[in-house]
Structures are given as structure tokens and as C-alpha cells.
């Protein structure tokens, strides 16, 4: 990984490092040559690591006070909110932390889409990322069930029932998942176990994600391969560390605002009503970050096909490195792709909006059109664009556009100057 051999200065350091090269690893991490033109969209990797650690630490504390039992879960959450020292703080950080985690991961994913970071030689990083994202959704869903409110219970019922769409064995799988004939105490205890397990799986995958990243090194806004180390790169420490730190602090200000001033705005009021199997809420809606997929699920009239469509919408991302046939990574040099990119962003936001609305009338129609366009983007537009698009000339190095006196292409947002 590191190009040069590293030898610790102290005798003990050398002795230790010969046996376990932790110091070599630390040296690699600090010296890691990073493109110097990375913009702030690249700071979300570090922010996501912070989110994961925050969720794990707050989650550990909550697990010390939470009771995974259908009769006591709701009460134990209220106990945390009222009687545990700073329990309200820990819980609000954890609950809002999930939302902040997803906000950051969506920015991270869409950054990758814009700058073509998923393309060769970074396909494995991308696919690991998709697996992490899937696990995040699983962890978030399982975690939302734990307070055992109305939305917890009915959300769990709706989502686990999706498996019943599988032909022949579907019903059996649902019973197996529930550990009974309805969502009940056995469901809650296993959901708690899995909710505790998944973050550590994510942590392991994050290590692989970063490892896979450190082989080819970071992509950059210009999207060209750069020599490492060179005048195009800076060592990770202190340059990227301080920049990531600055961005993280800004992120934390937003995070803190949610935690301290509107801690319940992202949740659903019904989840403060204890789960009641006899009363179904008027509208069962998932958390905001799952809404686009919920909209896709509901836009297909057939249950099985709806589930297939929803899963495909996520899994299609794993095939993205091969669906996108363009050799050019960065959208900065792809004038057409850039427009389709923003249409996709709008499409996903629309899906999220209609996902929160009742599936009827105009909302359903919009959801169907948006779902169709989502797949069209990945299955038709991207492959065709790679062949047809007339791309802009790419600079030879990332210093060229800077030293040439022209604005840094990565940060230049003036379309006219780029389209010429």
C-alpha cells in the first residue's frame, strides 16, 4: 500500500512493528496520499464513520437500560427518557443519529454518482458500500421496532409480511421470522439481537471499504487518475484530517439542532402510543429515509412484483459500474449525464414525497411514473449515454486547470463556461 518502507525510530517500536505492523499501518494512514482537489462532498466518508461510532456508543448505553419484552419495552424507553441520567440525551442522539446517518449516506452515494467514483478500478469499494447501505436499512428498520410503539409494531408487521409474497414458502418464512403467528414478543427479542449485531457487521465492512479505497486511492472531482504521491496529492494528515474535521463540526451543529430543539420532528407521533395489535394506525409510513423505496413498492399493483421492484431498485446500484458505459468518471466533463443526474436526484426526492402520501389518485400515478423513470435511468439512459455522449476534454492533471488560471473545474458551477 504505502510506497516506501517505514521503520519505527525507537528500538521497542521496531521490535513491536516487526511482529505486528501496527505502526506501519498508522504511518500509512497519516501519509496516505490524497488528491488535493477533493471538495466538501468528499468529507462525508469521515462524517459517516462518526455517525456509525455515535450510533454504536449511544446504542450500547441504551441497551443497558432497555428491556426487550413486549410488555416492558415501551415502559423501559420512557424510563430512559425520564429517570436515567441524561437518558433523554442518549436516546435523542441515537434516534436522530439514524436520520443524520442516512442523510450523510445519501449525500455520499450521490457524490459517488456525480463523480463516477464507482467506476474501475473502484467497483469493489462501491459494492461493499451497497452492502453497508443495505445493512444500514436493516439496522434502522429493526431499531425502529424496539420502542414498541404503534408505528414500530405495524411497520414490523408490514415489512415482515413482504416475505409472504414469495411463492410457496412465503407464509412459512413469515411465521419463522416472527417466531409465532403474529409480530409479538419473540419477534421483538430477535429484532433486538439482530439490531445489536448489524452495526458490528457494518463496522467490519467499513474497514474493508476503507481498505479497498486505499488500494487505488481516492477518486477526485476531475475524475482522472493521478500519480501518488505527487504534486497533485497531499498527505492525509494534517490536510484531510482538518478539512474533514471542519466539515464534521458543521454537520454536528445541524445534528445538535435536531437533538436539542426538534428531537421528535423526524419520528412519527404514533410511535409514542404503545403498540396495540387491535388498533391499526390510519397511515402506516416508514421513516423518511426509506420512503423512496416504499413508494416503489406500492407503485406496483402486484405484491410479489412490488417486492421484486423494491429490491431491484437497490440491487441495481451494485451493477452500476457495468451499466454506466462511459469511460469518463466525473460528470463535470459529461454535459448530458450531468443533466440526467439532476433529474435522477429530483426523481428520488419525488419518490420520497409520494412515499409519505397515501397510495391513491394522483400520488399513485406520480409514484408509477417516477418508479419507471428510476429504472429507465439505470437500465437505458446510462448505457446509451456512454456511447452517444460527446464529452468535454479532460485535463491531464488536476493542477493543470488550477495553474492555467481558469477556475477549478471541480468547483466551477458555471455551466456556460463548461459547455463551450
Amino acid at each position, binding site marked *: 500500500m504505502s510506497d516506501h518502507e517505514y521503520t519505527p525510530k525507537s528500538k521497542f517500536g521496531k521490535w513491536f512493528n516487526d511482529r505486528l505492523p501496527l505502526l506501519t499501518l498508522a504511518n500509512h494512514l497519516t501519509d496516505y496520499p490524497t488528491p488535493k482537489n477533493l471538495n466538501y462532498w468528499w468529507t462525508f466518508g469521515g462524517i459517516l464513520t462518526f455517525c456509525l461510532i455515535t450510533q454504536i456508543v449511544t446504542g450500547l448505553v441504551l441497551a443497558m437500560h432497555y428491556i426487550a419484552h413486549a410488555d416492558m419495552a415501551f415502559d423501559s424507553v420512557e424510563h430512559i427518557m425520564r429517570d436515567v441520567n441524561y437518558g433523554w440525551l442518549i436516546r435523542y442522539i441515537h434516534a436522530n443519529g439514524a436520520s443524520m446517518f442516512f*442523510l450523510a449516506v445519501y449525500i455520499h452515494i450521490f457524490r459517488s454518482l456525480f463523480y463516477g467514483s464507482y467506476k474501475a478500478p473502484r467497483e469493489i469499494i462501491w459494492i461493499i458500500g451497497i452492502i453497508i447501505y443495505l445493512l444500514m436499512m436493516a439496522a434502522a428498520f429493526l431499531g425502529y421496532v424496539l420502542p414498541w410503539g404503534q408505528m414500530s409494531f405495524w411497520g414490523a408487521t408490514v415489512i415482515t409480511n413482504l416475505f409472504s409474497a414469495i411463492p410457496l414458502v412465503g407464509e412459512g418464512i413469515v411465521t419463522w421470522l416472527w417466531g409465532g403467528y403474529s409480530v409479538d414478543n419473540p419477534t421483538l427479542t430477535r429484532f433486538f439481537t439482530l439490531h445489536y449485531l448489524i452495526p458490528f457487521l457494518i463496522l467490519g465492512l467499513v474497514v474493508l471499504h476503507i481498505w479497498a479505497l486505499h488500494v487505488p486511492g481516492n477518486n477526485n472531482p476531475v475524475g482522472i487518475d493521478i500519480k501518488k504521491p505527487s504534486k497533485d496529492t497531499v498527505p492525509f494528515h494534517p490536510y484531510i484530517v482538518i478539512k474533514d474535521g*471542519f466539515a464534521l463540526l458543521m454537520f454536528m451543529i445541524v445534528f445538535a439542532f435536531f437533538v436539542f430543539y426538534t428531537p421528535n420532528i423526524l419520528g412519527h407521533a404514533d410511535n409514542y402510543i404503545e403498540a396495540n395489535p387491535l388498533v391499526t394506525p390510519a397511515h402506516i409510513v416508514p421513516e423518511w429515509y426509506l420512503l423512496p423505496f416504499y413508494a416503489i413498492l406500492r407503485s406496483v399493483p402486484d405484491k410479489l412484483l412490488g417486492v421484486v421492484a423494491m429490491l431491484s431498485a437497490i440491487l441495481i446500484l451494485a451493477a452500476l459500474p457495468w451499466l454506466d458505459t462511459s469511460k469518463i468518471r466525473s460528470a463535470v466533463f459529461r454535459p448530458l449525464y450531468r443533466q440526467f443526474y439532476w433529474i435522477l436526484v429530483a426523481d428520488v426526492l419525488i419518490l420520497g414525497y409520494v412515499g409519505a402520501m397515501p397510495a391513491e389518485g394522483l400520488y399513485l400515478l406520480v409514484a408509477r411514473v417516477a418508479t419507471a423513470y428510476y429504472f429507465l435511468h439505470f437500465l437505458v439512459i446510462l448505457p446509451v449515454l456512454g456511447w452517444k455522449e460527446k464529452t468535454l476534454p479532460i485535463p491531464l492533471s488536476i493542477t493543470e486547470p488550477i495553474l492555467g488560471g481558469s477556475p477549478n473545474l471541480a468547483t466551477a458551477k458555471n455551466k456556460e463556461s463548461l459547455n463551450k
Partner: protein
Amino acid sequence: MKNFFKIFSFIILFSGLSLSTLAAEKVEYLKTDWSFKGLFGKFDRAALQRGYQVYTEVCSSCHSMKYLSYRNLAEKGGPEFSIEQAKAIAASFEVKDGPNSDGDMFTRPGRLSDKFVMPYDNVQAAQAANGGAYPPDMSVLVKARGGGVDYIYSLLQGYEDPPAGVTLDDGVYYNKYMYGNKIKMANQLSDGLVEYSDGTIASVEQMSKDVTTFLMWSAEPHLESRHQMGFKAIVYLIILTILVYFSMKRIWSRIETEV
């Protein structure tokens, strides 16, 4: 830096959108000034004490508050009754305890550590006494309703004669803020229903406001320390961010690129 502000404004926009769409209310609720809103929002101590009085004298005959203990009444950030007052309040309730050494259940005066006494022994008893409708526990009621405090405040004042064409069954009442407009709770408040010891006129509006404030506190007993800590945390973060920003500028000035 331009890019940075774009990201930041995107996040703010997202927050703003989520606030506006999620908090979107279909009904226009009655508005009043809540002392606990805003960056420095605090409970109005006197309103909490009056609200407690309304709860005990009016609501508590049907609605439980199972997550509250009498000790909470004397705790900081709440109604802040004195310990003696809270003890006296607790002692005014008969609490079922036991079994004693003879194996019998017995009643005794309440203590600070007791939970609020429940009006009914179980859900079925509550339903039987209320025409089949269960009066919801009010401990977290404010957070369990979409419109929050504004909804509760409006509901209490929202009783009207039903419009022409709407027929109501026995024991069902018309309320313009209730979901579906039909509610099984009769109008409870009338001017002068309770007698406030601090001389405040007990109008329906005043009692609604007081009891809703009390319910907000019961749902968020740590709201005041949350606001105080939040302000400190955010100021701290802003100062640290500024310092880190200048350090970053300094460090990156060694490179001929903009950060």
C-alpha cells in the same frame, strides 16, 4: 468554500423541508404563546402548578398518568412544588400496597416515590366506565398526537354543536379538532370550573393552556435542561468550528490550492 456553503444550505433546506412537510397540519389549530418554545423556552412555573390542579380536579378521574411519580412534582424543571407540598399532595392519595406480612393487600397514604394513582384498575374497567372508549394515558399524550400542544389546546376548546346533517350517537360529542370530529369525551371545561389559588381567572382558555403546559412537561420533563444544554452545545460547536476553520486555512496555505 462555495461548494461548502452549497452543501450546508442543502442540509438546511432538507431540514426545513422535513420540518414543514412533517409538521404540516391539515387543520388550523388555535394558537397561543407557549413559554417553552424557542431556543431558551422554559415552562411557566405557575402555569404548570395550575395545570396540575386542572389535571387532578378534572382529568384524573378518567385519565391516568402512569409514568409520573409524585416526586416529579418537586423536581427541577417541573412545577417545582416544594418537597413539603409534593409530600402533602402524595399523601392526599390512597395507594394500594402489599402484600404485608399477613399476606393481605392494604392501602396507605401516598409517598413521593409512588407513581400517580391510576383512576381505573385496568383497561377493561376504564372502557366499561366510558362507553367503550379508553381514556388514553396522558403521560406522553402531547408527543403521541400529530399537532402536539396546539392540537390538545384546541381540542379542549373545540366542542361545538354538530353541523346540520351530522347525527351523533349517545355518548358521542362533536369536536371540530378531533380526527373525524367525533369524540367520546364530553366537554369538560367551563368557566370557573376550578378555583386557582393564585387568583388567575379560570376561563376555559386559561385552563386549556395551563393543563396543556402541564402535559407538555409530563411528556418532556427534561425540556428545560435540553434547551439549556442545547444552546451551550451549539455555541461551543460554533466557536470550535471557527477555530478549526482558521487552523485549516493556515494549514492549507502551504499548498497553492483553495480549500
